[in-house]
């Protein structure tokens, strides 16, 4: 390979991604005066946090009594006991502080009559350790993510944060000892490749929901952080756990917030029955997302779906006061009119479970440090938000805990970086001589490849395979076949061809590079899912049914552990779940019901 020169820029910290967690981390670092670069594929307010709707959880107790310990219990239960209890306690305790902070930054929360932050009920949010629904989701109408992302960006404008907008990070730089030294990135406008050499590297790259054909996620959610980490030898944790949001608009995939059910919305089948009463007699439509999604698919599979093909169910809010809909759910009304051709004031919305969120990711501890297989921090490497697996969501995330996750761990990772830089724990170590080789080889291949596979067709094949072989319900044989199919896709991906060879804003090249990341995520998911021979949270298999010995098909004796997928050798290892919280008693294993 010809030696190409790669410009090097030096920073105290480089943050990859400018969604909620990246912007929250950036506030810490910029306000502390660290020389920080924030890289983003898109202008910060275009990041996918912007699409979050329903709320951010915090036990503020603005409308009724609430407590962080109850929030912690709900999160552990929601996770089907796969979440790490130290990180969950940390997140739930910190929630009121980070949400109030956000209000101080200017977030336009809705208000109660007393002028406090408005809170609404949400799936799995209960008071007194699972007793009855509680109002814990802090909301700005049904545009909470938009309001939050803009408020965080605005605070960064105030803090003079240095952004590199429309730069795509391509690979992680690590040295012989495994320490992380920064990233190599591509400026999309010019095609220039630059190394961001840094004491600290924070991944805030978000999720990879685009591995599925039907997804609520934006085009940009291609798991870039996961792909970069995997290629650099970092194992990925719990990648078999993907959340299917119960209410994506049928056919379009666009999200309809759980806040709709929080405000009183009801799911109905073709007989007009409120079927959730059968599946979750207590929480009904506000059970956890995995439970509701499975109930919906069961209704459809048993012939009680709606429409000419009986392939969706209905989300009904026609009984709500139109004034409430206009005030609390205006964005949902717009989306329904735009993407379902239906005004929800007059008619119910057709919905289906749709891929929404990845519970797994780059393994971190509750301080935002990336950890290796032995649990020890990888020096110089941090992660927060959807790319990270702390693990606070375990096998199933509670609604509104994602926005909380990115605030709490965005801030925590920023604080840890500040400590590590100031104490001299991390420094600017020399770049290895071959630091750019892998990246340049990838780019050169794309520039010269002829007669290869189409990026578009490879991606579609990948997405259809994931959708068919690794969906809401999983089947042993389909998973085994799915692994083989994804390996086939990977072979084609290694030879993708782009016709566009321009250096200027080459979106074909960007999509090809994104596909390199998607395929790592798809492999990790399929292999991890095939191997986990139990049902837990969002991972439910036909050969692990509900039995007296293993209620809900959960097999704690053999499978109460985190998966680690290693790219090299396509191999798995496991590590224990952290059951010891920071200050309170362990929330002991229990059968989950709503």
């Amino acid at each position, binding site marked *: 390979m010809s030696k190409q020169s790669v410009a090097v820029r030096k920073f105290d910290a480089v943050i990859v991604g400018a969604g909620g967690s990246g912007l929250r981390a950036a506030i810490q670092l910029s306000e502390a005066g660290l020389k920080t670069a924030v890289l983003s594929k898109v202008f910060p307010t275009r990041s996918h946090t912007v699409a979050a709707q329903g709320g951010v959880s915090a036990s503020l107790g603005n409308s009724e009594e609430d407590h962080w310990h109850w929030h912690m219990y709900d999160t552990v239960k929601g996770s089907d006991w796969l979440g790490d209890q130290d990180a969950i306690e940390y997140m739930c305790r910190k929630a009121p502080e980070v949400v109030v902070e956000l209000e*101080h930054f*200017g977030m336009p929360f809705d208000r109660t009559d007393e*002028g406090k932050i408005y809170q609404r009920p949400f799936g799995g949010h209960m008071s007194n350790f699972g007793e009855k629904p509680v109002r814990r989701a802090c909301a700005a109408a049904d545009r909470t993510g938009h309001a939050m992302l803009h408020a965080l960006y*605005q605070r960064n404008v105030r803090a003079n944060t240095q952004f590199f907008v429309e730069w795509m990070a391509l690979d992680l730089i690590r040295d012989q000892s495994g320490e992380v030294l920064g990233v190599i990135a591509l400026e999309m406008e010019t095609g220039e490749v630059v190394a961001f050499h840094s004491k600290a590297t924070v991944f805030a790259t978000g999720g990879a929901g685009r591995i599925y054909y039907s997804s609520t996620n934006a085009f940009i959610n291609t798991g870039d952080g996961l792909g970069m980490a995997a290629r650099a030898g970092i194992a990925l944790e719990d990648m078999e756990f993907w959340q299917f949001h119960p209410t994506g608009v049928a056919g379009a995939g666009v999200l309809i917030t759980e806040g709709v059910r929080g405000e009183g919305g009801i799911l109905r089948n073709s007989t007009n029955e409120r079927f959730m009463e059968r599946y979750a007699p207590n929480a009904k439509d506000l059970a956890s997302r995995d439970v509701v999604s499975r109930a919906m698919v069961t209704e459809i599979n048993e012939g009680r779906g709606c429409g000419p093909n009986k392939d969706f169910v209905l989300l009904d809010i026609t009984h709500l006061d139109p004034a409430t809909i206009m005030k609390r759910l205006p964005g949902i009304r717009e*989306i329904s009119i735009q993407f379902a051709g239906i005004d929800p004031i007059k008619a119910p919305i057709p919905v289906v479970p749709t891929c929404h969120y990845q519970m797994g990711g780059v393994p971190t501890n509750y301080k935002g440090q990336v950890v290796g297989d032995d649990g020890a921090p990888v020096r110089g490497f941090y992660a927060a938000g959807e790319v990270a697996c702390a693990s606070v969501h375990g096998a199933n995330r509670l609604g509104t805990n994602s926005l909380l996750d990115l605030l709490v761990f965005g801030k925590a990772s920023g604080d840890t970086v500040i400590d590590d830089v100031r104490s001299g724990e991390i420094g600017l170590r020399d770049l290895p001589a071959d630091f750019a080789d892998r990246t340049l080889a990838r780019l050169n291949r794309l520039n010269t490849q002829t007669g290869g596979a189409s990026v578009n067709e490879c991606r579609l094949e990948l997405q259809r395979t994931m959708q068919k072989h690794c969906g809401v319900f999983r089947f042993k044989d389909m998973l085994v076949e799915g692994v083989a199919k994804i390996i086939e896709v990977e072979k084609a991906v290694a030879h993708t061809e782009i016709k566009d060879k321009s250096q200027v804003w080459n979106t074909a090249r960007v999509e090809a590079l994104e596909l390199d990341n998607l395929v790592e995520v798809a492999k990790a998911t399929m292999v991890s899912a095939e191997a986990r021979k139990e049902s837990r949270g969002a991972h439910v298999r036909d050969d692990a049914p509900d039995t007296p010995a293993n209620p809900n098909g959960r097999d704690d004796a053999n499978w109460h552990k985190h998966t680690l997928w290693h790219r090299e050798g396509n191999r798995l290892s496991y590590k224990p779940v952290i059951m010891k919280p920071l200050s309170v008693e362990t929330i002991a294993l229990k059968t989950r019901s709503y």
Partner: protein
Amino acid sequence: MATSTMQFKIYRYDPDKDNAPYMQDASVEVDFSLDRKLLDVLTRLKAKDDSLSYRRSCREGICGSDAMNINGKNGLACLTEIKDLKQPVVLRPLPGLPVIRDLIVDMTQFFKQYHSIKPYLINEGPRPERERLQSPEEREELNGLYECILCACCSTSCPSFWWNPDKFVGPAGLLNAYRFIADTRDQATNERLDDLEDPYRLFRCHTIMNCVDVCPKGLNPTRAIGKIKEMMVRRAI
């Protein structure tokens, strides 16, 4: 299956190989049972010709990436119904900003104006332990303002912004300026009004109202600008 061929005329320019921009004729098979929005069809066009360049992300009208000029009017591709479009559909980059490539414009000037209005809450008072209180009525004043997605449809449809993009804040920036002026938690109203009391920054607005006509979120920058002017008059008396 309801398929049909749609005709397009698309502005193309790649500075790496083209001496000058040109309009390209293109056609594509559309399946009306699957394709509903212009962005769906752009995706099909791009599958045929991967060099066609445009920004896109959320595909649901909340991220503001895919603003472009569609049959002479600015809008978001992801919210534009294809059935309503007259053919050939003429696609151009947003007017008034430098074109980088195809439908991708350089938005530096647009964001510079947004940043110039200090788009963040200014409140130097001591930080309370809990949230700052705001009544539901006070919060309602922010409706129709905070929802801006910075897509630039409005500012790039404004003749005043075309003429003075360096001096006139433009409708998006002014809407956001009023978002902070209207926020009871913000303490910098006077400074904000001082900053805008300028023959160019605010007063280049001649209430042409193109901005209102094109906003994909149904917001009304002209009304916000009117409110700012009103406040200036009121404090002068």
